[in-house]
């Protein structure tokens, strides 16, 4: 399908088709893990560590109820979670599903209690007495990285650093470059899907396997991990991911809770359920975004970016999570910090620090949100230093449309696009000059500021990318099992999972474009290891490209077979046939046969078919791999205007504009939904969301009253502009774009705030930009004058 123009029909690629999945959710009939009931099911509650670092001296089970409480000592033979980066120097952690000997973060599971209801299981959990002997707590990633922390996470390690990496593409720069250096940071966050994690599982004696339903983004990977830890064959584990209430990276992990529940289900031979509550999410699983950058940008006098030097630390928490490891963030920082820019020189040193906090997980955008913040804030500081507009400075270094495809300083192959035009459109959409005029009038207590941020977003990362980052799970080929059923329905089995991404609709649209079949007659089956091809799942903005590519490939192969059958049944040449309105027809439309009739003939009246027909029939597996497999690069510029109250420190978003390019859009409505949803999360990162930890690594925001996520009233007026530059490397020009909305907001908003505060000599260096941070910046500026 390479180079095919977007389908202009109302249902195929390019159509704003309403979603097939909506009806069940609007009726309240979605089926989430917690909605599943099984006879004799028992609920689990976990005893979780109240301290961040301690040796377990003794665990005392409640008198008389010992048989309802389990510790790691009971789970003999269950292996720990190990996610070892392949990069040299990586220090390996072992995370037992229930803590063994030591606890290493607040919320780590120590014991498991079972009862007919969660409340009664919690009653038992309250009666479990654990004697802890405190160990020195490592709460600060700088101390961990620099070796100055008193505590040590893992006894057999040399340091508190999972991995140290160095990218060194340093080159000579002109003598008169302007060099600007700052320390910048992003806070630890929680992903906060509205539905938490959850598990229902039991042992099926007929099939001789564990049936595990889990709110999971990557059911095949969970199956692999479960089998490894439990000592089962993969065939003895089925994982089903049903309707899932948002993931954002939080559910892209093998859970210790899954292992515990699976073990218990086998032990008791009863269905076992665990449903995460909000307190568990916030206090035991605050696990993303925490980066610190010591960054220097060098620009020449014209504003052209000459080079970057950066020393980055990621607070990776206590263990390496399966499958992404403790080092995905740092690996990304090293390779994507240069952003969409050209430069002469680049150096980046990273350390993945181990601390007594929950293990880090990727959150929508992964490290890109942090690196975009670090670099884009520096570029605006440089523009201010040189007295030019932020977009003028960027124009001098953005990769140009004529340069595409372009290999950047870290060997990223940018596929296509016009980054500069995109930025200009966002600037215009915001009415930048109009806001500059209003800004000039706001010289009192409330200041106005403008900011922008631009980035490119690698999606559908290929084999070489993940292999290069040392991630233990390397994606390869995505596949689709496709078949036309006896009644002419197209069934597509996918190994990935859709938990809000709308794949039941978008994948049907792809099928419609190839086979002319109405999307209502396409059944997407996803999230079940039974019947679907192995897949690394849903993450990294990969499914429009990878699952979309696999669906297109499968439909094209099916088209060949259908065309052959139709040609025989219609007695015409196969080459003349086209797919339209659920039928195969001659180009002039004079003769046609429906897919229903072909299916009926194939399955139930084969006497009408020729002898040489391929007996493989109307079902097949087809696969897709992008070549070159670097991935697609969507890109965008976010521009905004803010008002800063210099007395209260409050920041108000006045206006927001986005111009983005996701290549050929399968469904622009869905893309906008991803974009705006991501924007809300990005605004949370920029202004509200933070899980502070005290010196003893105690989480301090364990309810949604303390951990604030944006509501409807926190969203600014918004304009969205689309560009659609096809990727030359994907199957129909599509690009991954699911994460982009969450990447730029912290950078764009911080730049606007700094623009507003520039006249007062104050500068923000960390997100979220809370009133406290604004006031602190103003006070620091006041003291230095």
């Amino acid at each position: 399908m390479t180079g095919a123009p977007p389908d202009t029909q109302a249902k195929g690629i390019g159509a704003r088709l309403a979603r097939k999945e909506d009806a069940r959710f609007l009726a309240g009939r979605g089926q989430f893990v917690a909605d599943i009931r099984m006879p004799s099911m028992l609920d689990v509650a976990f005893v979780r560590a109240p301290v961040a670092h301690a040796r377990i001296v003794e665990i005392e089970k409640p008198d008389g109820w010992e048989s309802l409480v389990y510790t790691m000592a009971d789970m003999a033979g269950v292996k720990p979670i190990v996610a070892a980066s392949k990069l040299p120097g990586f220090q390996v952690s072992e995370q037992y599903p229930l803590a063994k000997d030591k606890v290493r973060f607040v919320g780590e599971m120590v014991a498991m209690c079972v009862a007919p209801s969660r409340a009664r299981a919690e009653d038992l959990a309250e009666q479990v007495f654990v004697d802890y002997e405190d160990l020195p707590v490592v709460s600060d990633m700088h101390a961990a990285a620099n070796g100055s922390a008193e505590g040590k996470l893992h006894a057999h390690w040399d340091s508190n650093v999972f991995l140290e990496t160095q990218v060194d593409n340093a080159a000579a720069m002109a003598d008169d470059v302007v060099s600007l250096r700052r320390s910048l940071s992003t806070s630890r966050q929680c992903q906060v899907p509205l539905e938490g994690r959850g598990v229902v599982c039991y042992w099926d004696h007929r099939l001789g396997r564990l049936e595990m339903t889990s709110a999971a983004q990557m059911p095949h990977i969970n199956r692999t991990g479960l089998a490894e830890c439990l000592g089962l064959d993969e065939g003895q584990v089925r994982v089903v991911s049903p309707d899932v209430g948002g993931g954002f990276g939080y559910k892209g992990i093998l859970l210790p809770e899954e292992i515990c529940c699976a073990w218990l289900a086998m032990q008791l031979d009863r269905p076992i359920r665990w449903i995460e509550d909000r307190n568990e999410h916030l206090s035991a699983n605050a696990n993303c975004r925490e980066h610190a950058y010591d960054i220097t940008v060098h620009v020449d006098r014209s504003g052209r970016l000459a080079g970057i030097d950066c020393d980055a630390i990621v607070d990776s928490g206590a263990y390496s999570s399966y499958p992404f490891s403790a080092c995905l963030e740092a690996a990304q920082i090293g390779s994507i910090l240069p952003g969409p820019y050209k430069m002469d020189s680049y150096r980046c040193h990273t350390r993945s620090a181990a601390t007594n906090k929950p293990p880090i997980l990727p959150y929508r955008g992964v490290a890109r949100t942090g690196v975009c913040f670090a670099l884009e804030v520096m570029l605006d500081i440089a523009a201010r230093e040189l007295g030019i507009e932020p977009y003028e400075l960027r124009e001098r270094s953005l990769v140009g449309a004529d340069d595409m495809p372009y290999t950047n300083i870290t060997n990223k192959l940018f596929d296509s696009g016009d980054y500069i035009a995109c930025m200009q459109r966002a600037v215009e959409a915001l009415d930048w000059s109009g806001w500059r005029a209003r800004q000039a009038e706001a010289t009192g207590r409330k200041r106005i500021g403008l900011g922008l941020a631009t980035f490119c977003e690698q999606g559908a990362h290929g084999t070489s990318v993940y292999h290069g980052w040392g991630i233990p799970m390397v994606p390869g080929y995505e596949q689709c099992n496709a078949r036309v059923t006896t009644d002419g329905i197209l069934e597509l089995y996918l190994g990935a999972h859709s938990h809000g991404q709308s794949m039941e609709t978008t994948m049907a649209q792809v099928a419609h474009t190839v086979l002319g079949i109405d999307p209502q007659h396409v059944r997407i089956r996803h999230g079940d290891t039974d019947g679907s091809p192995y897949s690394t799942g849903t993450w990294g903005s990969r499914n429009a490209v990878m699952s979309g590519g696999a669906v297109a490939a499968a439909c094209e192969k099916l088209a060949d077979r259908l065309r052959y059958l139709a040609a025989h049944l219609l007695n015409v040449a196969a080459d003349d046939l086209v797919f339209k309105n659920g039928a195969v027809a001659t180009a002039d439309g004079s003769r046609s046969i429906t897919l229903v009739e072909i299916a009926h003939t194939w399955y139930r009246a084969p006497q009408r078919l020729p002898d040489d027909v391929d007996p493989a029939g109307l079902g097949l597996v087809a696969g897709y791999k992008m070549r070159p497999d670097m991935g697609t690069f969507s890109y965008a510029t976010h521009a905004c205007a803010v008002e800063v109250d210099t007395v209260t420190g409050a920041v108000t978003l006045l206006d927001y504009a986005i111009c983005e390019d996701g290549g050929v859009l399968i469904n622009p409505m869905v893309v906008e939904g991803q974009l705006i949803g991501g924007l809300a999360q990005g605004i949370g990162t920029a202004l509200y969301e933070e899980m502070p930890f005290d010196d003893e690594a105690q989480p301090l925001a364990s309810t949604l009253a303390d951990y604030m996520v944006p509501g409807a009233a926190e969203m600014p007026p918004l304009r969205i502009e689309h560009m659609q530059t096809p990727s030359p490397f994907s199957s129909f020009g599509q690009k991954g774009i699911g994460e982009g909305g969450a990447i730029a907001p912290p950078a764009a908003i911080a730049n606007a705030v700094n623009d507003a505060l520039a006249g007062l000599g104050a500068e923000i260096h960390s997100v979220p930009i809370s009133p406290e941070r604004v006031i602190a910046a103003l006070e620091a500026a006041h003291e230095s004058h």
Partner: protein
Amino acid sequence: MSQSLEFPESNTVTFRLDVNGQPREINAEARTHLADVLREHCGLTATHLGCEQGVCGACTVEIDGVPQRSCLQSAARFEGRQIRTLEAFEDDALTAALRQAFSQEHALQCGYCTPGMLITARDIVQRLPHADEARIREELAGNLCRCTGYRGIVRAIQHVLETYPQESSDGS
């Protein structure tokens, strides 16, 4: 066969609830909140739990015609009240209009906040026929959505406010 297990005693109380027009006799621990009774005892799983603290709004139901959190009070306190969950609005014309608008405006992605959003949206349309965008956003402050960024939800409610015939919007 399953292992036979004994558990600590559980003290339950019996009370009657009026759920979606049906009388229900409930036998549950006194501490059980309404959402758990609706989900675990009545099998009505449209009501979702997101925080069990009254912040997220996923558990919003109608009590005597007014939206209310079902996660904050024990179920026994709702004796004598009329409880309606999203399941009660299967054939409700206003809810049908909202459903249609939600789909058209892409006001849902994962669908987890959706039942609570629909209950709140229905209340906004009935109570505030002249609500503008800012007012709708303010009214939605008690319902969190982590997927959509709210634009589709706000637009869907606006659309229904503009198009739904007011004289029949009492919905009862």
